């Protein structure tokens, strides 16, 4: 049974550098993080023993995914490469490396059945690969700007993607049909004074019953270059693409949502990081405001959840990886 009111940190480990991405094995056996040195680290649960992956990427790693069986990890770097890792080796060994994107690989996702891998990059492309062979199946080029988020539907057939402009697309992985679009524009801004695009769809989540899609990021960005913005999650009805809720986080004037997940009990969980600190934020369908906030010790940069929703991993600028239990 999940009880979000009982959220508490049960593991807290450190690495030598500030951390970026974090993913947890769906069964909760280990965590993989990436650091501001282009390296991946695997922490065992509960001991916290750390294995550092060999250096392959020549840049930071922001795209990270673990297959449902916990056997393969995939990383995407600022060098445009996607690397498949064999997690049964110690330390993990490279299975293959693919030059996938021109510029950063920002986001990766593996389908729930472990058959497909999707990647999104700063070349505004979305690639679909066969996870087992690494074969490229198709490429979508309809996004106009950086692709920040990709997430598979539980049916293993549809893929949601989101970009810097706030465009959200639902794609059929098995056909060339045009995508279904959702309007995530409230997550994007162009600051005329600073001449920069900001925000975008930083994360996506789809509920297990495939009724709802949530897109997270930030809004009220009066000063993008100065980190002045607030977290925002848009919740849509998938059937008719209507916006149902604009979930905000009262009392957090400085933050953005860096990842979102639907928990098995129906709560929408987001992780926020910004000048107000780091928070796990919980929302329920039917109300815009949070139903619970759990403050983390430091600004968080990424978050992932086990299949049963009991363990939440967060990566932090203060070099810590933390595991919070919701059970």
């Amino acid at each position, binding site marked *: 049974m999940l009880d979000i009111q009982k959220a508490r940190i049960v593991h807290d480990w450190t690495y030598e550098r500030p951390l970026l991405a974090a993913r947890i094995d769906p069964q909760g056996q280990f965590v993989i993080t990436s650091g*501001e040195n282009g390296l991946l680290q695997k922490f065992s649960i509960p001991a916290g023993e750390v294995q550092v992956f060999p250096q392959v990427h020549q840049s930071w790693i922001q795209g990270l995914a673990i297959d449902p069986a916990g056997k393969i990890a995939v990383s995407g770097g600022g060098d445009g490469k996607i690397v498949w890792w064999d997690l049964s080796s110690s330390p993990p060994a490279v299975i293959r490396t693919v030059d996938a994107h021109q*510029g950063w690989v920002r986001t990766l996702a593996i389908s729930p059945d472990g058959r497909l891998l999707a990647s999104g990059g700063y070349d505004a492309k979305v690639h679909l690969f066969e996870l087992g062979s690494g074969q490229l199946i198709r490429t979508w080029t309809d996004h106009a700007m950086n692709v920040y988020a990709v997430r598979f539907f539980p049916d293993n057939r549809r893929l949601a993607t989101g970009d810097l402009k706030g465009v959200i697309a639902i794609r059929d992985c098995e056909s060339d049909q045009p995508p279904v679009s959702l309007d995530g524009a409230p997550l994007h801004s162009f600051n*005329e004074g*600073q001449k920069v695009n*900001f925000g975008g769809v930083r994360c996506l989540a789809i509920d297990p019953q495939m009724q709802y899609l949530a897109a997270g990021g930030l809004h009220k960005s009066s000063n993008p270059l100065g*980190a002045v913005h607030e977290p925002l999650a848009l919740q849509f009805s998938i059937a008719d693409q209507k916006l149902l809720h604009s979930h905000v986080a009262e009392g957090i004037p400085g933050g953005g949502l860096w990842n979102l997940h639907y928990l098995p009990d129906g709560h929408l969980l987001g992780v926020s990081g910004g000048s107000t600190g780091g928070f796990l934020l919980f929302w329920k369908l039917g109300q815009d405001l949070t139903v619970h906030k759990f403050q983390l010790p430091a600004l968080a940069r990424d978050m992932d959840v086990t299949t049963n929703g009991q363990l939440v991993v967060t990566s932090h600028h203060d070099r810590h990886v933390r595991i919070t239990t919701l059970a």
Partner: protein
Amino acid sequence: MKRVNYACGSADHTIARRRFLGGALLGSGALMCGLQQKMRAAETPAERPLKKILLFNMHGGLSQLESWDPKPGTETGGPFRAIPTSVPGIHISELLPHTAQQMHHLCLLRGVNTSEDDHGKGAYLMLTGRRQSPAAAYPEIGAVAAKNLLPPTSSLPGHIRIVPGGGGGRGNDAAYLGPKYSSIALGNGNPPQYTTRPEQVDEAAEKRRHSFRRQTDASFLNRHRSAMTDAFVNSYEQAEQLMLKRDVFDVEKEAPADHDRYGRNDIGRHCLLARRLLAHDVPFVQVTHSNYDTHNENFDFHHELVPQFDRPFATLIADLSTLGLLDDTLVVVLSEFGRTPNINLYMGRDHWSRAWSVLVGGAGVARGAVYGATNEQGTEVVDGQVDHGQLFHTYLQAVGVDSTASIDVDGRQLPLADPAAEPIWKILS
């Protein structure tokens, strides 16, 4: 004296180095100035090509680590890689692939230390060569360039700023040089404001109006002439000339193929306009690219902004070289300061003036060279440290202006540049 780090021993650079060393062996700045003055004297004014300055102001504070002084693989390096350039041994950020191919025209100054982390004060000292003081106001480099480089017969203004966004008008940046040399801003690259004749005023009427104005001016000036009245008269004369030469400021007159090469966006258009103005002998053009004040998500914003700058800037450098203008045009790329080597919790970089970079090129500056260096983490200058005062002197010397000279302002001798500083002779050929 600091070393110029020529990265290769190719014949071209060997010659350049010898030429440079020959200059350095002359020893003192006074001797170098004398040589340059002799070289100028050998040409008649009609033969002498007009020297110009093209200055890029990377507003907000371009990160040196994401541009001219990358430190990949270090704690401060960030995610971007370094790439080779057209000069073997010189590497710059992967965000500048087009500029990298023009590096043989350019000179990196990697040891800039200005010790000023405030935007306004940093911009002031980088553009005037002096620290801001309540006791005095100093003219910006554009005004000094206009004063010294604009031929008396020119009917065009000498000090143009191409700025993002709308607006325009005159700047308040000439200090004691007077409003004749203050900047005219071209908002978003549009021609100067109020330079079209109102429809209800036909050409003949316009001529009569100007004739009447001149008569009344002459009558008044016979009795009350002063520097102030001259400035007013000049502003009207300049406005009339601007109206006659409005096409010079119309970038749409450039070929569509050139618009394509420069990129059909703001900074592409602004760079093409800069080329047009320089080709029409405007002696100082400043282009502003904004905004690099990336305390938050530094890498995403530099990923967005630097490539916008890279292609049109590199195209402009290549064109200036092809057109034969680069030998007489000093190119400067500066900011008010650089950004911290430390990466903050928002993946941003803050203000950092102790160790950053300025790019120069063309005119009398050494080509394909690096001067100065920072340590492994980019936190301190370890070789070839220079400051705003030295840079200001260097800009002027590079276009043949004796930066140690003074000008007479109402009977007072005011030095063109800070007399406590001197040019970076090592990079002047």
